[in-house]
């Protein structure tokens, strides 16, 4: 590696007096250090992915295997029937509900947040800091402080039990995080572009739409992924504002697991895998961008 390695032999004595330009330790020492490092990596990967591994194994077991005592650790006859069953049954509908609700609210959130983020990041106006403080602090309030009144509002609009009952709150509560992340991406765009556009006679709004927006397309995509994950995983509102027809996947999975003792574990595991796999694919694809995006948003939830 071209990077300066850390000294592999550590100074034995306390204090900073010891010179360190000594040659590195023996080759063998380096090797075992590497081995330890990769061993640690392996442990971390297994621990972090444990539920996914378990769900993958269980979802490919036959119903007899999933209810065998003691549970087999490995499927003897791997099968995909659980997935078929899950997609054909209720879980398929919950999956579709999740997709519709998350996609629609992500779209609305992004639309509104992009406008606001541009104003915060690029325009000068009075009470900007106060407005931003308002947005940020609101995102930290517990959702429990809103869940009852929102229920009554949605009920008076006859929306409880429809997907709109999820799309409306999701769209709004995703805003603060999206605005913060988008601001960070917008602040990366050099101001000269807008200046040049202004010299060419373009309006601020025109420069924003035609010059700045295309430049932050990767940022927009990253933000959308993070917002989508938030909506996809939401539970409290989904639990309170849905009926059996509009359960989202997390709510459906939990309710199935808590009410039916004869539940087919294979089907439930298949549902879990299906709810996770799209996200895992996105993570592996966008790992670095998501890290920077999440950090900018201050990592809520």
């Amino acid at each position, binding site marked *: 590696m071209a990077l300066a390695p850390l*000294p592999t032999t*550590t100074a034995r004595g306390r204090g*900073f007096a010891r010179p*360190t330009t000594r040659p590195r330790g023996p080759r063998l020492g380096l090797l075992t250090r590497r081995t330890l490092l990769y061993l640690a990596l392996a442990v971390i*990967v297994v621990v*972090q*992915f444990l*539920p*996914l591994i378990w769900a993958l194994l269980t979802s490919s077991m036959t119903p007899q295997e*999933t209810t065998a*005592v003691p*549970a087999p*650790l490995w499927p003897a006859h791997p099968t995909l029937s659980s997935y078929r069953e899950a997609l054909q049954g209720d879980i398929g509908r919950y999956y579709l509900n999740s997709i519709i609700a998350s996609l629609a609210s992500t779209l609305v959130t992004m639309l509104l947040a992009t*406008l*606001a983020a541009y*104003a915060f*990041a690029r*325009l*000068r*106006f*009075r009470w*900007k*800091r106060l407005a931003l403080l308002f*947005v*940020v602090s609101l995102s*930290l309030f*517990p*959702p*429990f402080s*809103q*869940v009852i*009144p*929102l229920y*009554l509002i949605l009920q008076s609009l006859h929306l409880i039990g429809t997907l709109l009952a999820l799309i409306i709150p999701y769209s*709004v509560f995703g*805003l603060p995080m999206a605005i*913060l992340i988008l*601001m960070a991406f917008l*602040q*990366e765009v050099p101001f000269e572009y807008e200046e040049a556009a202004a010299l060419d006679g373009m309006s*601020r709004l025109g420069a924003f739409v035609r010059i700045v927006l295309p430049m932050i397309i990767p940022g927009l995509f990253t933000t959308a992924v993070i917002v989508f994950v938030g909506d996809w*995983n939401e*539970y*409290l509102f989904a639990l*309170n504002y849905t009926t059996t027809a509009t359960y989202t996947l997390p709510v459906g*999975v*939990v309710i199935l*697991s808590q009410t039916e003792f004869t539940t087919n574990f294979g089907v439930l595991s298949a549902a879990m895998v299906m*709810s*996770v796999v799209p996200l*895992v694919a996105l*993570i592996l694809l966008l790992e*670095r961008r998501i*890290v*920077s995006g999440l*950090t*900018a948003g*201050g*990592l*809520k939830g």
Partner: protein
Amino acid sequence: MRETEMASDQATTPCEQQEESRLPFLASARSPQRPAFMTTIGAPLLEARESSPRGPLERREERLAWLMLLPVVLALLALGVYPVLSTLWFSFQQGGSFGLGTTSAGLANYLRLLHDEQFWSALRFSLLYSLVTVCGQMLCGTALALFANRRFHGRWLARAAILFPWAIPTATNSVIWAYMFNDQYGLINSLLEHLGLLNPTHPIVWLGSAQLATLLIYVLAIWKANSLVALLVLAGLQGIPEEVYEAARVDGASRWQILWRVTLPLLRPVLLVTLILRTIESLQAFDLISAFTNGGPGNATQNLGLYIYLQIQQFGDFGYGSTIAVVLTAITLLFIVLYMRTLLRTGTR
């Protein structure tokens, strides 16, 4: 000062000052100019500048800004602020499902709290849960971040592994864990039996014991939110300029000394902000516990969130539910104020 800024100073337009405000961790390289404590969270908040507009051009800019903000501000007022105020108002109303707002209850709901044994045990659980899990998350998350910040082949795998628990739906994840710890069909007991550590006729009933269930909830919560701490700390680590380490190494510091005397002190602001954010989040825990034990066995793992949900769903008592929600919000508010103050203080140095 640095040359780049000096150069741009000469051509400063009113708007150009904004250009300085960028987030250092988003810059592709480690930026040596930026001290570590200027990194990460809340930077947009701190660096948003404002000025009173004078000319017609500035006034137009201000009008455009508020126009662009209007939908967001209205939406947040309607679905964010108004419900919070309603909850406060409901807490003074008589309970009963759908009969809200008809009769005032005065302070009755709050007086009821004082003698409600279940409320106090839920409050105790919530606070203890926050204390234990946040400490665990800070420790494990920081360790993960330090690991993922090292340079080695396959580091992307470490980072993806850090991200994974964040992406998996909390509720779904809890169901998976509940099955892993199922006393009959669970992987854990089965594993122990295969290893000969457990007699199959006497399985461990993990979720049937208050202590074991609580312990598992702690483990699960730490596992789940590790990633969030690790991400913030990772960003903080990348804000520390390489020269600082080089200087320490030249002075003969060992790895541990560098960690304790250089890295961690420089990370302190980031760690503090992360700690507060995690505490706020953990006080609001609901889906994790609800899907894992649903408060059981008995009420052993019931926290404030679950207790509010119980009031709403089972008893339809919106008034009393709101009262508990107000208490939870008040506790959270303490930490929100702390968060804002910390942000502003670390930002202004």
